[in-house]
């Protein structure tokens, strides 16, 4: 091969690089190690993390059992090591699975069209906001304080440079639902979107219908965010929304210390040309057989460049596939039963504690706890990771802890929590 390239030594292939740019020493990295040593390295790191603890943390990332079939399917080399399905003839596996994914997301959310995933729920929010601005021609965005705090932070980062003022509106202190009066005061003719979350960050099923009416009356779009996808097994979907922006981590995606996850955008039909991200469409091949392909690509960066609906290129295809397998394994009845179990678990725990809000909740709720840090310390001694003290995000709630109970929490664990917190 060197002969064919006309060089005696491979290093000559770099001879054309200017002297000044060439690295004149080896990289200061350890030499390569064996498979066994790599496994050992990560085992050692794992040993430095929590091992064998029960957990009552939710707050945007949820512990749900991952059906065995999920990893079986995504570990297949044909899915794992394949590329974006730009060449439809040799990517029908990926394209078909995404088409099924898009369909199931529409069925779950009550929307008309779902895309083939965004990076995660937190980045789906600014994308939804930007869509609303494009679609309405207006510039302001309103977001509820009961939307996940880190999601709001991400929106602020994106919005700051788009000339897109973002204003937050509050929640009702007793119920934990959105403050409709505050929303009413802040909504005006310049509002492009009203963004709410349901179930919200406090776990409470929020006033989506009322928010929709208000927003639509003033010519704004309603964006509904979700972080706990399992809720859609039981809770009425936000059919009044124009855009649903959510996180699918609950569907067999490992918590994995924060990522990778899969966000989705699902929309009403009228907004289709404003939607970022990849879309799979149904068509036929030259023999008339059903076949799928990526479509409406003219929205995307590789064609529109600076006029694109977004700069997004990579999606979360493999993660979306995990969610697709999860949804298939549980199916119509299973997802409902799973959600019902989650409801029961959380309500059992809440029944033994002092819920801070009276609003109706799914599998997360806020408990009144005098000294959250001390309580959590005591729980750690029982090898239980307690809920999230809210003071860090809501300074007005220093005596509040956000607890989540799923099908993975046992009665004994919950009784132990009640003993310490109750």
């Amino acid at each position, binding site marked *: 091969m060197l002969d064919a390239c006309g060089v005696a030594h491979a290093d000559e292939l770099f001879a054309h690089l200017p002297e000044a740019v060439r690295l004149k020493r080896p990289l200061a990295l350890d030499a390569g190690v064996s498979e066994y040593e790599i496994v050992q390295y990560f085992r050692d790191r794992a040993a430095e993390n929590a091992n064998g603890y029960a957990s009552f943390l939710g707050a945007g990332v949820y512990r749900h059992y991952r059906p065995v079939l999920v990893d079986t399917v995504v570990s297949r080399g044909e899915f794992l090591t394949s590329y974006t399905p730009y060449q439809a003839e040799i990517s029908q596996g990926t394209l078909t699975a995404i088409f099924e994914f898009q369909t199931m997301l529409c069925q779950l959310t009550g929307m008309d069209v779902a895309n083939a995933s965004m990076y995660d729920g937190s980045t789906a929010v600014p994308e939804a906001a930007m869509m609303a601005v494009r679609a309405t021609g207006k510039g302001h965005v309103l977001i509820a304080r009961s939307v996940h705090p880190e999601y709001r932070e991400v929106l602020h980062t994106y919005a700051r440079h788009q000339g897109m003022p973002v204003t937050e509106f509050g929640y009702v202190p007793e119920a934990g639902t959105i403050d409709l009066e505050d929303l009413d005061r802040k909504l005006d003719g310049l509002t492009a979107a009203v963004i709410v979350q349901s179930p919200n960050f406090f776990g409470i099923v929020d006033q989506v219908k009322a928010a929709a009416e208000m927003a639509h009356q003033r010519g704004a779009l309603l964006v509904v965010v979700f972080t706990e996808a399992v809720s859609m097994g039981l809770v009425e979907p936000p059919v009044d929304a124009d855009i649903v922006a959510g996180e699918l981590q609950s569907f067999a995606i490992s918590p994995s210390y924060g990522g990778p996850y899969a966000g989705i955008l699902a929309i009403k039909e009228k907004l289709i*040309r404003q939607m970022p991200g990849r879309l799979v469409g149904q068509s036929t091949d030259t023999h008339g057989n059903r076949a799928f392909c990526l479509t409406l*690509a*003219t929205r995307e960066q590789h*064609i*529109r460049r600076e*006029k694109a609906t977004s700069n997004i290129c990579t999606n979360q295809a493999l993660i979306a596939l995990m969610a697709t397998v999860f949804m298939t394994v549980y199916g119509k009845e299973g997802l409902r039963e799973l959600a019902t179990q989650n409801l029961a678990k959380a309500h059992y725990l809440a029944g033994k504690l002092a819920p801070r809000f009276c609003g109706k909740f799914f599998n997360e709720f806020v408990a009144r706890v005098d000294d959250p840090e001390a309580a959590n310390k005591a729980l750690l001694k029982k090898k239980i990771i307690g809920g999230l003290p809210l003071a860090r995000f809501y300074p007005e709630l220093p005596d509040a802890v956000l607890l989540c109970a799923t099908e993975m929490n046992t009665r004994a664990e919950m009784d132990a929590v009640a003993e310490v917190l109750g």
Partner: protein
Amino acid sequence: MYPENLRYTKEHEWLLVEGDTGTVGITDHAQEELGDIVYVDLPRVGTQLTQAGALGSVESVKAVSEIYSPAAGEVTEINGTLADAPEKLNEDPYGAGWLVKIKLSDAAQAAGLMNAADYEAYVGAEK
């Protein structure tokens, strides 16, 4: 080769002047370059257009092309049939594939555009 009764722009749009009404479309050369057209983005009725200002865009599967208005005026009618049948631009770019009708602010602007012979020469030179 190109209809004699139309005027043409360097961006491959055509203009038909009838009194103070102008009809705008894209030329056969343009539709051929674009390939199969899948979507047309047109302005709202009432929009004020400037000469050479953006009017909308035409999309094929793999490309988007901006359309510029050959003359200034107000949009009075848009070709709604294109939403369901964008292929009309490919099949009949001078007839059924018309894009918008405008009330011309200055019908004399048409005189500054190319006639059929000039446009044909222009396209030939471009190739």
